[in-house]
């Protein structure tokens, strides 16, 4: 049986020009030799910082971009040589508010795309009605999209992506910008779709989202996959480590450097939180680090010191490096 999604040595390079006369050629590798295989029915998550290549990968799989080299297959069909057959069997949803005709009603948006997907009218009528009900748009389907809330627009996006009853659904940061309740509802729907047998390829920034719903995840950094496996196996990459967190007001740069030099410390990240800084230290021996904090911080008093087990986010930060905040 063919894999739902497959990539082999997949590479994408963008070539642009710059300068007044556009003579300077600029090459940028968006994807570097990606190998990936997703089983039918799997809910697969792709994690990575902005610009890592997540959207480029989704666009290649959805036939919107051609790879520079390597191959990409959906349900055994090559996305380069057989895009029309691929398009019939996939759906995709991009995050954000764009991608809909705001001056048309939600219902008109769905009808239009149903016709572009060449779905017979008797089938599309029933399916649209079902999707409107399932995605909680009942009663608002005849309103113009410009009057919808962000959450409703995202649910309409999802309804559009499901119009052709796709076997593989690509979701590119579908919960971005949604309020917690809307995001949770959408995750619930995605999980239900997966339980219903659809293969789902989800890109996200949110670790807890991937941890909560994905069967398997991959972490992408600068166009290369740096880790792949189940959420628990990814977490195991930091299994022998712990995390120390504390708050300080006015963290000296020298102290941060000193912390990084302590034995067993693998990374130190500092995030601003109101007037204070929250310092997260990934290390092999948390107790040792905690005892040395007073010395290292040299007069600056740490507050809310705690030690905890590493999460998927910690594993992600470790894989991506200190630059990811």
């Amino acid at each position, binding site marked *: 049986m063919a894999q739902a999604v497959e990539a082999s040595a997949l590479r994408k390079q*963008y070539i642009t020009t710059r300068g007044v006369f556009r003579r300077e050629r600029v090459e940028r590798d968006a994807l570097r030799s990606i190998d990936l295989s997703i089983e039918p029915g799997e809910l697969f998550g792709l994690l990575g910082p902005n610009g890592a290549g997540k959207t480029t990968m989704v*666009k290649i799989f*959805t*036939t*919107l*971009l*051609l790879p520079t080299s390597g191959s990409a297959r959906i349900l055994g069909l090559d996305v380069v040589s057989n895009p*029309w057959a691929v*398009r*019939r069997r996939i759906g*995709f949803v*991009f995050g*954000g508010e*764009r*991608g*809909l*005709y*705001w*001056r*048309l009603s939600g219902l*008109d948006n769905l*009808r*239009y*795309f149903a*016709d*572009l*997907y*060449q779905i017979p*009218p008797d089938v599309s009528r029933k399916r649209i009605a079902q999707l409107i009900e399932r995605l909680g748009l009942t009663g608002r389907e005849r309103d113009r999209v410009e009057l919808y809330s962000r959450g409703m627009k995202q649910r309409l996006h999802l309804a*559009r992506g499901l119009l052709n009853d796709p076997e593989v659904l690509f979701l590119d940061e579908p919960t971005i910008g949604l309020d917690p309740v809307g995001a949770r509802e959408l995750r619930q729907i995605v999980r239900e779709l997966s339980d219903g047998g659809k293969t789902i390829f989800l890109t996200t920034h949110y670790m807890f989202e991937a941890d909560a719903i994905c069967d398997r995840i991959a972490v992408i950094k600068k166009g290369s996959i740096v880790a792949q496996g189940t959420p628990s196996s990814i977490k195991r990459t930091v299994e022998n480590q712990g995390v120390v967190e504390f708050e300080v007001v006015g963290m000296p740069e020298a102290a941060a450097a000193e912390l990084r030099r302590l034995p067993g410390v693998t990374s130190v990240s500092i995030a601003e939180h109101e007037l204070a800084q929250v310092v997260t230290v990934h290390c092999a021996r948390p107790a040792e680090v905690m005892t040395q904090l007073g010395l290292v911080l040299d007069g600056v008093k740490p507050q809310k010191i705690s030690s905890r087990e590493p999460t998927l986010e910690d594993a992600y930060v470790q894989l991506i490096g200190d630059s990811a905040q």
Partner: protein
Amino acid sequence: MKGYARAAISAFRVSMRLRVVSTWAYLNWLVFPLIFTALGLFVLGRPGASGSHLVYGILGGGLIGYWGIAYLDGGNGIQDERWNGTLEHVFAVPTPLWVILFGKICGSLLFGILAFVPTVLFAYLGFHASLPAVDPLRFVISLGVLTFTFMTIALTLTPLFALWRWAFSFLNGFELGVYILCGFMFPVAVLAPWAQGVGDLLAPTWATRALYASTVSGGAPDIELWWLAAVGLSLLYLVGAYFMYRMVGDRARVSGELALA
């Protein structure tokens, strides 16, 4: 084929619905044609001007409106789709882009042809100008041929807007050039020979000549040849369109220009 027809009809319907709620569409449809009609009639309706030239004033504004909507609205529509983020969605459906654009362009043609109504009325009510001797059959055929030429040019050039973000400003010049080279507002005989040569390569030149000839007494003995020339050139454009769509389909997937960023 049924699926394609349904997709094209749906694209037509959506383009019409989006157009009627757009105030910009009325600029091309009503305001600009009326300005051109007023200017044309002011110049061509002066004492001593040839009576047969008056038809350029009566129909010229409508022609400009028709052409502007048929040609430029297609590009505008693509640009709008890019801004709305819908261009990628439209591109990634199992219906070829030309089918969708064909539906949209048909919408533009229907909306555009209506530009003749206010301009001809304005000429009659505002300037007491009317067409001297219309041959209804030849007029209708000429208008049909003209519509076909507009459709083929729009169908051929519109995908370029999808491929290149900068195409819109560049191809704007083509819109204005056609006004002059195809003789929308005055006979092409007044142009320099090289410009007439370029105009002869444009199918609307022949269709426009036939349209004007069908409104004056005596008409033209070789009007059928003009129709043939317009249709023949348009068919050549369609051959070009075939390669254009293949090129756009491949190139857009290489450059990623369908998205805004």
